């Protein structure tokens, strides 16, 4: 007999969005996850944000899994997260990590909350009586909280805790607590856990005004706030409850608001010579929202150095902020803020557009505070005994942003890689989960398998009879809670209720036994359980039901305490009980008319199709193939490698794409699991998750092949953009950066002979006509080429004419390095583009220098143009073949720009790399890894269970008007031309009900949310007075 393998367990340290994403992906893959966070709650920075750029909306819930929805959270993720495979440990620090190579012993310090959430009934009387008031850190000290408090207002459960530093141990809270949930002497606990892999997602410390001396000349008043504090000032659950933004000092509406960028970042003096990457977009978003909230009379100004709008859609956002919302951008770093006697904040600045000084008063100044990464990295390096790189950051493997160097099984994601936006946090979280999965599959650990209990046939008798089980929650509710006798009696009188039982703690083992007994004896055919957190043990309870011979969909759980309490401040026992009775009746009705649900199972063809044989495509293919997944790798050219792998020898950050690609090509051709198809394109793909069929067309032979596969990853790249500007094409002295790079590498261009070189950035880019986006890599390319010239010929003068230098994150160091090397950066504006004239065969560049405010003439031996990155023209054909869409800029359009960056709306189709948007090589590799992981989650098994709650077609009623197909936001419905009927793809359908409403005669219906059920629920809501009257 084979020894039982241990279940693969991963510690994800840090429960911000990247950690949560990594945890969900691992949990969906069947691994057990420990998700810890040093702070009191999960959610990280995003817990504070109501709006995220670039869409200015939330939508965090969209990161939840699309298939098998019922296993994860089923509500707002800012409330909390439930997943059966994830154990969440907030307020927990990692104090030691021992072991190596897949066997880690982790010591966890679980800090005492002093309030036991398992016992607390969340009535909050303790908060009322607590005499201690301290600044509330969630609102950045802009409001006060008590020593006993709820850390995040929207968390469910509330998870109260006591701030030990603030608590005076007066004991008032203990006196009023009816459930003995408070123990003022509770101690921190230390626990050791064994895990196989660790993903660090802790994020990094942020710059703050208390600690850093360079903040002192700005933070002169409470009206100078950090950008995160400003988020709380805008939030509905924040300082001003979502209303008009005011000055914290005196509550006057803030009419003039200024943002100061790069607070704490891009500062060589303070040894922080890096960019924090997200602050520019953050400030733009905040300025737009401030205007939206406060009206057009609110004046918003951002003081910046370079407006770094390098991500997908960022440039459009900037243009919209400026052109449509009137956000002012001024390229000037102000030296300080002066507090005037009337409380206003004076700033003096130099406006390079008018070449004048201005002194202006502001009501509010927001400091765009950046990252302080080194402490956090040092802490982790010490704990993990991992190396730091020369910058002082955790060293990662050469080509990876994720894998910690020399430490198999240890990974980082999210803002530990440098502050990331939501999209990158998502990609990195998935990629980290992917790398961890990759690692775990080599260890021979097991995954958690769902307990397979056959679903009994439904008890669908003519008349439904409901058994109600009410959980007392371990007497949590206490004496002044629900009157169970009254509630039972009331419910028993309700039509359709066969019996009412009161159970002690349904979540515990005893409760399970009791439930089992009830189900064994009952004459009823449906069970409704009233308990506290319905999502926590839903699956467990459903398994109990199945064992007892009940169809699991005939068992429902409702949040007894939540609904009973909702909207009441100081309810009496009677209030609680009556409200509970009223509320539960509509749940009874809903259950009475609920049909048995059946989860569809999709067979999975465990083969992947990867489109695009560049480095990203090869990475995705290899990642899947090494995990045993057969891969078809399709490349339209005659050879693998793509643009980077064939054209680019070196990148500025020390990578060698060509060498890497040739190494990968060998691995690809050696790998038995990978079949390479060259010279061909996918012409048409049909099917659904698990069973796609693609038609490959070989252009040379004009032949077709058909491939069958279960998922698709599109990793089509891009290439250097074309231009006719600045005399390109008229002289061999005007060339592109790629041409220069190649020329120097091949020796065709001798940098030694150059005296003056001029480079122009953003050629045809970041403008409405042309590439309306930043290509993200050109600044680095230009700097790399310029440095190369300087290396060969230190006497050469190199001028780089730029609009904004986009050396975001730790790329900033190369910008600094370039200037140190004497490369001269000169700014030009889009309105005043450089002019190029050819004089005696040499280009002469004329432009307006915004620093000296003079026309400058630069005669050059060579003019080098950064022409950006163009998407592959094959993208359109690809989009047509797969039924996906392109953005205006002809990149592939992902499902959701923030929360689902590497997925398409259609489940089973993924994208990565430059197909998404231009990005540096390491980011391409990260996305490719992430896409591979998404595909692997489904391809690792022979079948995938979809959800039971799903839209169905009642064919006999259906008139085939196809309105449901048109209205479905997921493309889950289609018309089967052969069978002449409407079909629903159970993997795509998210049960939103759009089709059910659009369909006039209920031929389309969401099972479990039928009109019959909902109308019965409405009845129950409106008839309650009638029925309750006799009870009172």
């Amino acid at each position, binding site marked *: 007999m084979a020894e039982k393998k241990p279940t693969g367990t991963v510690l994800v340290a840090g429960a911000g969005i990247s950690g949560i994403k990594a945890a969900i992906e691992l949990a969906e893959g069947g691994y057990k996850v420990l998700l810890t966070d040093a702070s009191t709650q999960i959610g990280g920075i995003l817990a504070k944000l*109501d709006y995220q750029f670039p*869409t*200015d*909306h*939330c*939508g965090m*819930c*969209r990161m939840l899994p699309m298939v098998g929805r019922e296993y994860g959270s*089923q*509500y*707002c993720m*800012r*409330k909390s997260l439930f997943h059966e495979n994830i154990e969440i440990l907030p307020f927990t620090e990692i104090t030691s990590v021992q072991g190596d190579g897949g066997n880690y012993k982790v010591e966890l310090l679980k800090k005492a909350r002093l309030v036991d959430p398992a016992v607390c009934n*969340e009535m*909050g009387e303790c908060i009322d009586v607590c005499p201690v008031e301290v600044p509330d850190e969630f609102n950045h000290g802009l409001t006060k909280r008590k020593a006993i408090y*709820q850390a995040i*207002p*929207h*968390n*469910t459960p*509330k998870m109260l805790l006591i701030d030990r530093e603030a608590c005076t141990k007066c004991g008032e809270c203990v006196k009023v607590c009816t459930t003995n949930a408070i123990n003022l002497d509770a101690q921190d606990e230390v626990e050791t856990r064994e895990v196989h892999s660790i993903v660090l997602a802790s994020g990094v410390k942020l710059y703050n005004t208390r600690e850093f001396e360079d903040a002192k000349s700005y933070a002169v008043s409470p009206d100078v706030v950090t950008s995160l504090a400003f988020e709380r000032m805008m*939030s*509905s*659950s924040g300082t001003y*409850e*979502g209303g008009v933004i005011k000055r914290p000092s005196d509550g006057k509406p803030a009419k003039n608001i200024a943002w100061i960028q790069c607070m704490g970042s891009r500062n060589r003096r303070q040894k922080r010579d890096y960019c924090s990457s997200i602050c520019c977009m953050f400030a733009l978003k905040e300025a737009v929202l401030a205007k939206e909230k406060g009206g057009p009379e609110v004046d918003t100004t951002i003081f910046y150095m370079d407006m770094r709008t390098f991500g997908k859609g960022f440039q459009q956002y900037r243009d919209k902020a400026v052109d449509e919302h009137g956000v002012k951008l001024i390229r000037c770093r102000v030296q300080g803020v002066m507090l005037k006697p009337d409380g206003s904040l004076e700033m003096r600045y130099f406006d390079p557009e008018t070449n004048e000084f201005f002194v202006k008063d502001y009501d509010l100044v927001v400091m765009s505070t950046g990252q302080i990464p080194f402490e956090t990295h040092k802490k982790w390096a010490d704990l993990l005994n991992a190396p730091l790189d020369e910058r002082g950051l955790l060293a990662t493997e050469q080509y990876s942003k994720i894998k910690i160097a020399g430490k198999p099984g240890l990974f980082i994601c999210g803002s530990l890689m440098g502050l990331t936006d939501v999209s990158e946090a998502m990609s990195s979280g998935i990629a980290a989960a992917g790398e961890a999965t990759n690692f775990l599959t080599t260890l021979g650990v097991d995954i958690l398998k769902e307990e397979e209990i056959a679903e009994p046939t439904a008890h669908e008798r003519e008349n439904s009879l409901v058994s109600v089980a009410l959980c007392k929650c371990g007497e949590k509710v206490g004496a002044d809670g629900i009157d169970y006798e009254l509630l039972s009696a009331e419910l028993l009188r309700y039509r359709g209720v066969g019996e009412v039982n009161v159970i002690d703690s349904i979540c515990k083992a005893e409760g399970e036994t009791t439930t089992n007994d009830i189900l064994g004896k009952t004459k009823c055919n449906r069970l409704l359980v009233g308990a506290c957190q319905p999502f926590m043990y839903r699956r467990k309870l459903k398994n109990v039901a199945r064992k007892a011979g009940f169809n699991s969909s005939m068992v429902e759980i409702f949040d007894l305490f*939540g609904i009973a*309490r*909702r*909207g*009441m*401040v100081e309810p009496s026992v009677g209030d609680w009980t009556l*409200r509970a009775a*009223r509320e539960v009746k*509509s749940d009874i009705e809903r259950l009475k008319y609920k049909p048995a649900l059946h989860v569809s199972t999709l067979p999975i063809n465990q083969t992947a199709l990867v489109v695009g044989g560049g480095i990203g495509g090869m990475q995705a293919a290899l990642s899947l193939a090494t995990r045993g997944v057969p891969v078809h790798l399709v490349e339209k050219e005659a050879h693998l490698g793509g643009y980077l792998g064939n054209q680019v020898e070196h990148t500025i950050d020390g990578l060698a794409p060509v060498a890497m690609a040739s190494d990968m090509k060998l691995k690809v051709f050696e790998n038995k699991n990978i079949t390479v198809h060259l010279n061909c394109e996918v012409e048409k793909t049909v099917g659904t998750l698990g069973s796609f069929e693609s038609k490959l067309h070989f252009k040379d032979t004009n032949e077709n092949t058909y491939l069958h596969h279960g998922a698709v990853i599109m990793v089509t790249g891009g290439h250097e953009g074309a231009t006719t500007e600045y005399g390109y094409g008229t002289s061999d002295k005007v060339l592109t950066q790629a041409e220069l790079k190649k020329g120097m590498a091949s020796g065709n261009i001798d940098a030694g002979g150059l005296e003056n070189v001029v480079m122009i950035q953003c050629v045809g880019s970041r403008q409405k006509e042309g590439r309306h986006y930043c290509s993200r890599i050109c600044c680095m390319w230009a700097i790399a080429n310029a440095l190369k010239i300087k290396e060969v010929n230190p006497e050469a003068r190199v001028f780089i004419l730029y609009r904004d230098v986009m050396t975001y994150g730790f790329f900033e160091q190369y910008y600094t390095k370039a200037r140190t090397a004497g490369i001269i950066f000169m700014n030009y504006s889009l309105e005043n583009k450089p002019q190029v004239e050819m004089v005696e065969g040499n280009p002469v560049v004329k432009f307006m220098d915004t620093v000296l405010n003079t026309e400058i003439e630069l005669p050059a031996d060579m003019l080098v143009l950064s022409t950006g990155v163009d998407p592959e023209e094959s993208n359109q054909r690809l989009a047509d073949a797969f039924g996906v869409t392109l953005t205006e800029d002809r990149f592939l359009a992902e499902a959701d720009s923030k929360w689902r960056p590497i997925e398409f709306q259609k489940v089973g189709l993924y994208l990565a790399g430059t197909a998404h948007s231009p990005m540096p090589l390491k980011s391409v590799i990260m996305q490719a890894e992430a896409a591979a992981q998404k595909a692997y989650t489904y391809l690792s098994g022979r079948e995938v269970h979809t959800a039971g709650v799903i839209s169905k077609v009642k064919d006999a009623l259906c008139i085939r008007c196809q309105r449901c197909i048109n*209205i479905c*936001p*997921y493309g889950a419905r289609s018309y089967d031309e052969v069978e002449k009927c409407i079909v629903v793809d159970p993997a795509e359908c*998210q*049960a*939103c*009900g*759009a089709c*059910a*409403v*659009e369909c006039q005669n209920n031929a389309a219906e*969401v099972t479990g*949310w039928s*009109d019959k059920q*909902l*109308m019965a*629920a*409405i*009845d129950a*809501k*409106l*008839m*309650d*007075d009638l029925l309750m009257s006799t009870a009172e």
Partner: protein
Amino acid sequence: MSDFEPKIVAFFCNWCTFTAADLAGTSRLSYPPNLKIIRVMCSGMVDPKFVLKAFLNGADGVLIGGCWPGDCHYINGNFKARRRVALLTELLKQYGIGEERFWLRWIAASEGNMLKEVADEMTVKLKQLGPSPLQNMGQMVG
């Protein structure tokens, strides 16, 4: 009239407005018990029949709560809801059930305070308006 307690059937989307209702609850913001909340997965799931049913069964008001434009978990369900509400309003106002009794509001998950405001405001409005014109039509139900 002062003791008239309007009945408001409130269809709240699972992701945003229902969460806001929870938040209002946990933030100890009391809102009138007049709201009879029915959780739906999406405001776009609210069938016009539900609204008609509620009014015909004696509701004094109907409130649909959904995510703000752009926030919808299901991408665009709230936009579809908005068109349906416009349609129903055009229809119902002829019979004395105007916009003041039938509300669609965007309430985000963090807007517990707005939920309270809307609930308060609607309750006050309906108290002023008095019972639904269908109040005495019980015998014609449905």
